[in-house]
């Protein structure tokens, strides 16, 4: 054998055995050693390690030197040899046995191609035996690749590509494998392949479809908005701050989608056919942009602009309505535009947009991941290998990251060495009191602010003219949203939680409670007070009023965010630098800013029913917010010293976007559509009992005007209006959900059982190896020659 392993050294360190290999590089030497030992155990069963243990095959348990709990049975071995039985001092023979275990050789076989090529290309400085051994390695390399090629050929093209991309080969090897595997696919034509003709069309369609999909995907990825600013931010601050800006971009895309749908199906048809203009609200001052009244209230922005007409290009022969008097009579033999009913369009556009957003949110990968069963990340090893953020590229940030890691490790080490702090009772009681006090303070402040908003809104309502105090309520709400989270942060700082992630979760929870309670109070104001008795408050068009209030809230929120960014971050930094002469910059509070974004998005979703162009306002606001926050962060903030679990936080934020934010908005919109009476003098739903009625009316209209759609409406009546059908569909979905949840439960149980099994196997292995080693030691002590 070409390698020089000193088997007689049993008390030396195990690693030195590996470093003394021949003259070649340790990597290749070890590789050859492992390969050859595998080969040798296959080729010569009566090798060294097996001889010694032949005599022990009939041994029963009492002869084994170690018990299952690891205690030594036999006292014949002295302490020096006992040390050699510990894990780091296993002898070379034991290590040889270990390295030829099937789990080891199978794992290395998978990575052979790259390593084998390296070892075979190195100049062979050792004896001819090694060159003799390298040849079988090369032959096996091409055999491995042939295996891979044949595997790929058996799959469909897209599956094969996905598998090839995920294989750990170098790019040149991958391209060669690809050439080998798909040579036949590229060269052959349809005719020479044995595809039956009825499948040819399907194959052609699927190929063009995957081609189109690929082109669309590349177009979408090339539209990468804000790619370079994100790179600068991630280079300086890392993944945590980047996740805020990624979330902002996601919300922008949602709003863009809403805006496009609304614009195409709602705003554009109505804008092309505007209703008669009200002349006395034509004066335009700048304040109108902020309050949404006056000129804007008559514009396409708000609900009041939309009419309950049906847009047609011709009129029916027997109709004598005045508004269609100047249109030509419909000729049934000539194609004409399907009458476009604005109320039905309004209802269905909003409903379908909400439905599609629901599907996108639920199907998004981050949402699904948040429900996965993950063990908590308290192990050190995972921390060490996953802690370095490779995106960080700025010199100072890299240094900061190193400091952060060393601080974290030092804290972990001190925790380990000191063990559980034996806190005295008084200390624990003190901490409990502090926690209770902080929670009580926060809850009281939330209740007080909700009551303040409620009383203010009641006061605004009882004062009939709505004109004077329009901006007070939004200003108060935004001020509360700005100041109270600061109070919550102070409380968590006083409480001094042990783990930073608990701290973050607690402050997110408190902030969330505040926002949910405020939005709840406001919803009660709109849907419970204004909408129900609009005439009492002197309102002709309550939907317009609600839309305007939401518009004002959104804008005030933006104004206050600008103020906070300027005062909170810029002036704070100046204060620290000039007055206190310290170089500490404020830290960007990711959780608070993300919750602000979610709050703004909730307002948009609530308001889209009353102001269809509100997503456009939100888009402009998000654009401005991105650039403002980016410059503020780059100028005024520094990277945080606390670790930020980016992936867990992102799934939490997407979950929060879905659960209180989207669902709350969807529930209130559905409630409005289903139960609340629309105002009688404005909007597309005037003179109807509920907004939902317009859908039914439209269907009835369809029946009478167009026989082609008659069957569609009949199907709608039969299916959707039929409670039995709905019951059956719901029952089916519930059954599917139940089956899936049972499957997931079962899988979870299997996973935990397998984990236990792996632990037991590990213990078994350790037990066996220790006993083998001890027996070998004992027999080598007994036998005179080794």
């Amino acid at each position, binding site marked *: 054998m070409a390698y020089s392993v000193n088997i007689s050294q049993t008390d030396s360190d*195990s*690693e030195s055995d590996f470093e003394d290999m021949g003259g070649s*590089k*340790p990597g290749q030497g*070890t*590789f050859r050693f492992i390969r050859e030992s595998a080969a040798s155990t296959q080729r010569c069963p009566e090798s060294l390690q097996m001889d010694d243990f032949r005599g022990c095959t009939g041994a029963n348990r009492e002869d084994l030197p170690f018990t299952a709990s690891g205690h030594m049975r036999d006292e014949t071995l002295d302490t020096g040899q006992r040390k050699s039985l510990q*894990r*780091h001092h*296993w002898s070379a023979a034991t290590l040889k046995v*270990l390295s030829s275990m099937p*789990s*080891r050789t199978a794992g290395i076989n998978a*990575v052979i191609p790259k390593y084998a090529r390296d070892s075979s290309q190195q100049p062979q400085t050792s004896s001819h035996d090694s060159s003799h051994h390298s040849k079988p390695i090369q032959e096996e390399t091409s055999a491995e690749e042939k295996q891979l090629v044949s595997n790929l050929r058996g799959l469909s093209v897209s599956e094969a590509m996905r598998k*090839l*991309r*995920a294989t*750990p080969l*170098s*790019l*040149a090897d991958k*391209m060669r494998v*690809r*050439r080998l595997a798909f040579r036949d696919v590229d060269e052959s034509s349809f005719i020479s392949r044995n595809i039956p003709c009825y499948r040819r069309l399907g194959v052609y369609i699927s190929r063009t479809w995957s081609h189109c999909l690929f082109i669309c995907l*590349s177009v979408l*990825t*090339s539209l990468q908005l804000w790619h370079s600013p994100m790179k600068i931010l991630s*280079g300086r601050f890392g*993944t945590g701050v980047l996740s805020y800006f990624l979330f902002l971009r996601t919300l922008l895309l949602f709003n863009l989608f809403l805006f496009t749908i609304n614009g195409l199906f709602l705003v554009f048809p109505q804008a092309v056919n505007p209703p008669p203009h009200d002349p006395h609200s034509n004066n335009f001052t700048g304040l109108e942009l902020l309050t949404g009244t006056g000129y804007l209230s008559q514009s396409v922005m708000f609900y009041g602009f939309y009419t309950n007409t049906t847009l047609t290009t011709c009129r029916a022969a027997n109709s004598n309505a005045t508004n269609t008097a100047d249109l030509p009579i419909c000729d049934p033999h000539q194609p004409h535009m399907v009458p476009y009913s604005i109320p039905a369009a309004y209802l269905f556009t909003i409903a379908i947009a909400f439905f599609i957003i629901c599907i996108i949110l639920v199907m998004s990968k981050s949402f699904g*991941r948040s429900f996965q069963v*993950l*063990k908590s*990340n308290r*192990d*050190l*090893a*995972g921390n*060490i*290998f*996953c*802690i*370095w953020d*490779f995106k*960080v*590229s700025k*010199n100072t940030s*890299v*240094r900061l990251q*190193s400091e952060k*890691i*060393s601080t974290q490790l*030092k804290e972990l*080490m001190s925790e*380990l060495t000191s063990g559980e702090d034996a806190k005295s009772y008084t200390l624990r009681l003190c901490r409990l009191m502090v926690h209770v006090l902080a929670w009580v303070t926060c809850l009281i402040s939330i209740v007080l602010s909700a009551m303040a908003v409620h009383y203010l809104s009641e006061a605004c309502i009882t004062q009939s003219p709505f004109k004077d105090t329009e901006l007070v309520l939004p200003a108060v709400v935004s001020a509360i949203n700005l100041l109270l989270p600061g109070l919550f942060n102070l409380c968590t700082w006083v409480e001094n939680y042990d783990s930073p992630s608990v701290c973050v979760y607690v402050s997110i929870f408190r902030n969330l409670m505040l926002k949910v309670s405020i939005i709840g109070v406001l919803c009660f104001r709109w849907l419970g007070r204004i909408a129900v008795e609009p005439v009492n408050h002197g309102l002709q068009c309550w939907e317009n009023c609600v839309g305007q209030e939401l518009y004002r809230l959104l804008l005030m929120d933006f104004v206050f965010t600008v103020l906070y960014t300027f005062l909170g971050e810029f002036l704070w930094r100046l204060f620290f630098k000039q007055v206190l002469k310290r170089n500490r910059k404020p830290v960007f509070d990711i959780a608070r800013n993300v919750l602000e974004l979610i709050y703004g998005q909730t307002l948009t979703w609530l308001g889209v029913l009353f102001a269809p162009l509100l997503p456009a306002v939100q888009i402009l606001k998000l654009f401005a917010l991105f650039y403002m926050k980016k410059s503020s962060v780059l100028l005024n903030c520094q990277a945080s010293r606390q670790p930020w*679990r*980016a*992936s*867990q936080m992102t799934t939490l934020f997407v979950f929060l976007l879905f659960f209180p934010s989207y669902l709350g908005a969807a529930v209130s919109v559905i409630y409005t559509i289903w139960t609340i009476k629309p105002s009688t003098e404005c909007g597309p739903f005037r003179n109807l009992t509920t907004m939902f009625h317009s859908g039914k009316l439209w269907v009835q209209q369809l029946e009478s005007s167009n026989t082609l759609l008659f069957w569609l409406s009949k199907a709608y009546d039969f299916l959707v209006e039929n409670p039995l059908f709905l019951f059956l569909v719901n029952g089916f979905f519930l059954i599917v959900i139940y089956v899936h949840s049972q499957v997931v439960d079962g899988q979870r149980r299997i996973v935990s059982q397998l984990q236990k099994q792996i632990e037991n196997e*590990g213990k078994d*292995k*350790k037990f066996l190896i220790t006993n083998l080693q001890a027996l070998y030691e004992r027999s080598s002590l007994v036998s005179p020659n080794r």
Partner: protein
Amino acid sequence: MGNKQTIFTAQQLDSYQDCTYFTRKEILRLFDRYRDLAPQLVPLDYTCQPDVKLPYELIGSMPELKDNPFRQRIAEVFSDDGEGNMTLDDFLDMFSVMSEMAPRDLKAYYAFKIYDFNNDDFLCKSDLEKTLNKLTRNELTEDEVRMVCEKVIDESDLDNDGRLSLEDFQTMIVRAPDFLSTFHIRI
């Protein structure tokens, strides 16, 4: 979609697209980045597959890698000769694996090789010590480093041989959800 480029043949671009996680546009952009490192060495015509290798010093001077403590290991792992001198294929391979679309197992495999300083297919104690020292810029004392390494091996060594194999490493990575977001270089 812009067939006007003359750097690669259509087959080459298709082949790159299939074997990496990049689109055509990104591959061309990466080629520009590669060429910017040494415009006099890298030809503008890759149709004849020239054998051009950029030395490690140039690769390590890229802004994305310049301050990364593991840049040398990254370059060594992805280069063909193991010294850090990279051809265009190695360059594309490196950024493809480090991009956000690469799956976790692929990233775990290469992360294992990066942290394996002595190239012996195992993360032994010396590898861990070197990793720790690079992570903390030698700020921990020797005792602390030793303690951390022992704890790491205790926790994740499933087959109890005193060092971490690829399987141990991959099992550990499965339990760490942050790995995908931190083992990522934006280019």
